[in-house]
């Protein structure tokens, strides 16, 4: 590779690159220095007299002040990126000239889009997004609803709190009604307190008969197959043809040994041995249909058999939702490390929730990839080695469940719903009062019109007349409340264009939707209604209380997942061959690590710098096992101190972040480098342009990532960005696609089918982790990279503050907010970039307190 030459080019270009526009100047202009480029290479054909392709460029404005000008420049950018212009037969710019022009123009376009997208500080009324809606219903009715039928509100750029981009599609109204009806059905629990039920099952009672039956079937299949082949008569033995007979026989022979192994095992007499793929692979517990919804406890007596790696000593609990059985998948609810042994088993207690309409089919299985084919791959790989299949790892003695566990009856939400009239008899005379009180709560302090109530009552009476019971007649008007604009939108009326201070109730709503993604609780609403909330010290105490509340998890999860675009973690299936340990539960734990770490920084009032480099991690047993950290017990996340020199600690050392910088198979220095620029250095590269000719020179060659990427430097269209991005990513090459440390790069080669059968081959390459930051700072390896990034807390804090402002205010961060961001950062700096301080500053800021 020609690294030396590429390096020289980097340095010259980075040093000479100047900011496209001054921070204080709100105009977005293409730098004047490019007038010559345009004149030399474009204007000759694209002018007033000779506007080739109907594009005239001699009169183009260098200031991008409107969408039309932006589109003209975008066209130029596209044509250059696609390599269409300048035409082959005309004079070509040098690669350096072209790179520089493209680089500046791409950056200018990013600024221009931002400026043209600036809402001038206007906060548009917004609808509750899907998360907020879910939480709001939970607070109001005490039930969890399935919101999958609503649009996710994430994905078209920006946060799901930005009102202007939250649309309302024509089917949505009916979805809201349908969800509300279901939720009300669950919430309106009348009648007597449900009795506690209990059931105990010895696992061998279900496992052994099922295995015996399955073995008998397999043996029959094998015999019939053998006979069909011997006699040549397939139909007589129940096969459509001989090929099918042979296939079925082979399948039986693959499966029989593991069945025999389990059935011959002494532990089968007193419990169930769990297998992977074929055999008794999932233990099912069905909560009967007539058992009341509520919180239940599942208890499992389990132990490990020993002799298998630690990552296989975990038990997954999940439930089967419609359609999941076919693929051998389930909805994973939790994962437990099994520390007991078959001689000395332990009892694991698992809280589960049973709802009226949700799944009642609970599954216990060995931790595994949540994909039938992936598990088969694992099976075949082990079978290839020992002729049977994966070694047995988990043994279940018995399973029992009890529930519903009711600590208060009727439930609090039901009591609230029926106006504390727990004992008073419900009748038609207090129906209006119930509806009115509910609407008042649902509208979060906004007035409920009498005419609206009248109409709700009309609905009620019609239902009654049609013969509906009191409860079900009440359900309908209450559902309509939950589909009304006063409920669905956060309304802050203003008739003028002037900004005004928020009322205390409006402030309470903004606060709680910012920090909880949920409506204000009684304490906050009381302070708002009395006006106390407007006192600075009261406000500060409330914000502290809210950040400390478990409800702040919604903020952490909602904000962080969007800020870091964590949906990418679900984009790829991680190859079970290459990354057997990075299964579904590992991926969930890796994702949660990011949230829990952010939550810890918020709760413990730590510096943002801890997100760049820290001497601790926040992990649970599973992730600790994945990282090779000793001594972490329990599936709750906790703070764990790291040995000096550990590669973990900070975002760059997190499996989720590293895995997102991959395609599930190979690490991607490009994705990782771009992540560092975007989220950590606050220097986002422009979005990947369309129509750039694919680099084909190295096509099909098996090469380490670094060598493949070197080709980026050969074309200006690529080099403009990749000269900055890729060298950062090289510093993370010691982490594989699933975020584990590696000494060499392992690439899987050969046919796909073979890999699926566990017979893939690999090639190994040494890793060169040296690289540099866009400003020219060089590093030798991962530790050097992390150190260099950690030295730029200011940049990181600015990017994070801008994102937080956008999330909190519900509008894009605009040029008009620069000063605000400066102030917030100044006060944060004096407190070592405390995340809490930044949140406090945002809440105390003028834009947050006004409409």
């Amino acid at each position, binding site marked *: 590779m020609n690294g030396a030459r590429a390096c020289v080019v980097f340095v010259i270009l980075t040093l000479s690159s100047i900011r496209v526009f001054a921070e204080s100047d709100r105009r977005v202009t293409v730098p004047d220095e490019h007038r010559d480029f345009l004149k030399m290479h474009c204007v000759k054909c694209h002018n007033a007299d000779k506007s080739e392709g109907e594009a005239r460029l001699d009169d183009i404005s260098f200031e991008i002040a409107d*969408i039309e000008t932006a*589109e003209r420049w975008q*066209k130029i950018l*596209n044509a250059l990126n*696609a390599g269409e212009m300048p035409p082959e037969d005309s004079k070509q710019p040098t690669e350096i000239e072209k790179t520089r022009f493209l680089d500046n123009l791409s950056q200018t376009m990013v600024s221009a889009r931002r400026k*043209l*997208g*600036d809402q001038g500080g*206007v906060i*548009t*009324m*917004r*609808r509750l997004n899907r998360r907020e809606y879910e939480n709001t219903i939970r607070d109001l009715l005490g039930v969890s609803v399935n919101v999958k039928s609503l649009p996710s509100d994430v994905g*078209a*750029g920006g946060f799901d709190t930005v009102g*202007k*981009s939250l*649309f309302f*599609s*024509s*089917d949505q*109204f009916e979805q809201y*009604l349908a969800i509300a009806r279901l939720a009300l059905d669950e919430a309106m629990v009348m009648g007597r307190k449900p009795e506690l039920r209990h059931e105990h099952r010895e696992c061998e009672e279900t496992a052994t008969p099922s295995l015996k039956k399955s073995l008998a079937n397999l043996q029959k299949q094998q015999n019939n197959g053998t006979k069909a082949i011997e006699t040549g008569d397939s139909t007589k033995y129940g096969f459509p043809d001989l090929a099918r007979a042979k296939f079925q026989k082979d399948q039986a022979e693959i499966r029989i040994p593991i069945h025999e192994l389990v059935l011959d095992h002494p532990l089968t007499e007193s419990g169930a041995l769990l297998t992977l793929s074929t055999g008794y692979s999932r233990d099912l517990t069905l909560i009967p249909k007539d058992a009341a919804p509520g919180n239940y406890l599942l208890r499992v007596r389990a132990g490990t058999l020993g002799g298998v790696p630690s990552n296989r000593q975990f038990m997954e609990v999940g439930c089967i939702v*419609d*359609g999941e059985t076919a*693929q051998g998948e389930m909805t994973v609810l939790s994962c437990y490390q099994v520390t007991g042994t078959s001689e000395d088993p332990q009892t694991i207690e698992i809280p589960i929730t049973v709802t009226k309409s949700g799944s009642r089919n609970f599954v216990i299985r060995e931790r595994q990839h949540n994909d039938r*084919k992936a598990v088969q791959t694992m099976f075949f790989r082990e079978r290839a080695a020992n002729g049977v299949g994966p070694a047995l790892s988990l043994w279940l003695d018995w399973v029992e469940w009890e529930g519903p566990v009711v600590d208060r009856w009727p439930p609090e939400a039901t009591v609230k719903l029926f106006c504390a009239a727990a004992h008073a008899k419900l009748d038609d005379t207090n129906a209006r009062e119930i509806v009115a009180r509910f609407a008042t709560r649902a509208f979060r302090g906004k*007035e409920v*019109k009498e005419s*609206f109530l009248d*109409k709700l009552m*009309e*609905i009620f009476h*019609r239902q009654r007349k*049609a013969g509906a019971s009191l409860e079900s007649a009440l359900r*309908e008007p209450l559902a*309509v409340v939950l589909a*009304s*604009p006063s409920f669905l*939108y956060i*309304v*802050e*009326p*203003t*008739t*003028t*264009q002037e900004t005004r201070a928020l009322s205390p109730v409006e402030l309470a709503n903004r606060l709680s939707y910012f920090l909880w993604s949920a409506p204000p609780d009684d304490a906050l609403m009381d302070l708002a209604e009395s006006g106390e909330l407007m006192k600075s010290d009261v406000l500060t105490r409330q914000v502290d209380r809210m950040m400390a509340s478990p409800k702040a998890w919604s903020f952490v999860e909602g904000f962080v997942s969007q800020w870091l675009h964590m949906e990418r973690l679900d*984009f*790829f*299936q991680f190859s079970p061959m290459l990354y057997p340990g990075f299964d579904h539960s590992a991926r969930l734990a890796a994702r949660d690590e990011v949230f829990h770490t952010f939550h810890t920084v918020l709760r413990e009032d730590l510096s943002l710098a801890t997100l760049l480099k820290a001497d601790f991690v926040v992990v649970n047993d599973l992730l600790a096992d994945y990282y090779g950290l000793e001594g972490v017990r329990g599936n709750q996340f906790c703070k764990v101190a790291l040995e000096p020199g550990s590669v973990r600690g900070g975002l760059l050392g997190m499996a989720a972040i590293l895995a997102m910088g991959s395609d599930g198979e190979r690490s991607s220095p490009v994705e990782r480098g771009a992540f560092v620029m975007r989220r950590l250095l606050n220097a986002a590269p422009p979005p*990947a*342009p*369309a*129509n*750039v000719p*694919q680099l084909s020179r190295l096509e*099909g060659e098996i090469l380490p990532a670094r060598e493949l990427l070197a080709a980026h430097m050969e074309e200006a269209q690529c080099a403009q960005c990749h000269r900055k991005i890729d060298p950062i990513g090289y510093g993370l090459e010691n982490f594989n696609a699933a975020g584990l440390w590696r000494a060499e790069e392992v690439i899987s080669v050969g*046919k*796909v089918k073979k890999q699926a059968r566990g017979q893939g081959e690999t090639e190994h390459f040494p890793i060169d982790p040296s690289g540099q930051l866009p400003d020219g700072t060089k590093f030798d390896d991962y530790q050097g990279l992390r150190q260099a990034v950690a030295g730029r807390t200011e940049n990181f804090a600015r990017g994070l503050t801008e994102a937080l402002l956008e999330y909190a205010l519900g509008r*894009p961060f605009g040029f008009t907010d620069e000063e605000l961001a400066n102030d917030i950062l100044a006060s944060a700096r004096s407190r070592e970039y405390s995340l809490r301080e930044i949140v406090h500053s945002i809440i105390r800021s003028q834009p947050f307190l006004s409409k």
Partner: protein
Amino acid sequence: MNNHSFYRRAFLRSSSTLIALPFFNSFGWRRFASAAAPVARPKRILFLGFGFGVTRETWYPNVDQTGTEWLLPPGLKPLERHKKDISLVQNLSNKFNNEAHWGSTFWLTGANRYAEPGQSFHNSVSADQVAAEVFGKETRFTSIQLGADDADASGHGPGLSLAWNRQGKPIAALNNPVTAFHRLFSDETTPLEQRQSELRDKRSVLDTVVDDAQGVARGLNKHDSDKLDEYLQSIRDIETRLSKEEQWLDIPKSKPTDPVTEPAGELVGYEEIKVMYDLMVAALQADASRVMTYRQPVENLYRSLDVSFTAHNCSHYTEGARKEASQLRDEKQSALLAHLIDRLKASLEPDGSTLFDHTCLTYGSNIQSMHYLENCPTLLTGGGAGVKLGKHLVMSDPKTPLCNLWLSLLQGVGIPVRAHGDSTGTIPELF
């Protein structure tokens, strides 16, 4: 019509959106069943979108073989038996689209994402919905949107189906064959009277929320009342649908000439697409709708073909396994399309012609392959729009707007439109 609904509609009308409310025909008015002596068979228009595009090297015919003298490329091989009945068009694209993973969002709209100042996303009406405004009057379903539950992973981009309404808001799809089957063909089991009463209940729900909206609207500035308008638009849409339901209330769902049964519940990928195609044919036979779109599963298709790479990974193929997978997908998709064409050709209309003769079908995506958004894959079939079939057309302007095609097809099936999206004119060479 009671007073409340009068006020509601007056209120809906007074808000700033330009769309007129359809007149509420609560009494008596009844459309004629389509069996009444047909003069010419009705036209149908169908769009099938497949997200992440195709394998560029092996899907397109050779650009030097145009007109009727062209060879089927490997990616289209399974369409061999229909070669005289399909046309390929090259060099079409949407000039505003810079989103390399959004194969469906702007495919039928040609919109500029950034056209609306201060908004991170904007879209406009899709071609199918333009047709639905005219064709939809005649059928029980104004239009039918089909989709799959893997859209996020299939390179379709934002949206709920291929269809976007007049306001540029997404229209939801039926995302699995079972739901689609029931919506299209299941008989109503509730008695007529009860359904009439349900309709009244639905209207009084709308009345009620509009009453609340009137209160909210009173104190809003321009930006906020635009937002509230989106809500009200949704109420208007439901009203339109209800009055349509009312018209059809006592007409049983018509049956396709080839009977269909409820599909199995767990079809994924290849079989899923095949069943959806069959349901589309059945819906056309029953004249349930004349406008349909299908945002096809791609990720699930790979799963059903035992390919372990994701659709995204395959779309960024390089020589080797991923390219092979991408080519396999092209081939399987072509085989499915060939099956659909078979079915259309085999569906006889009352006058002896076939459904194929009256259907205009486009099969394609806004993405060519990888990050290429130019020369969007475009295959046309069916006689509905009068497009000459069996031709390979390479537009001389390499950036001919896709919207020129949509405009041509819309006009071809008889929709009186002068422009669509960023169209600059029609494509006369098609006819």
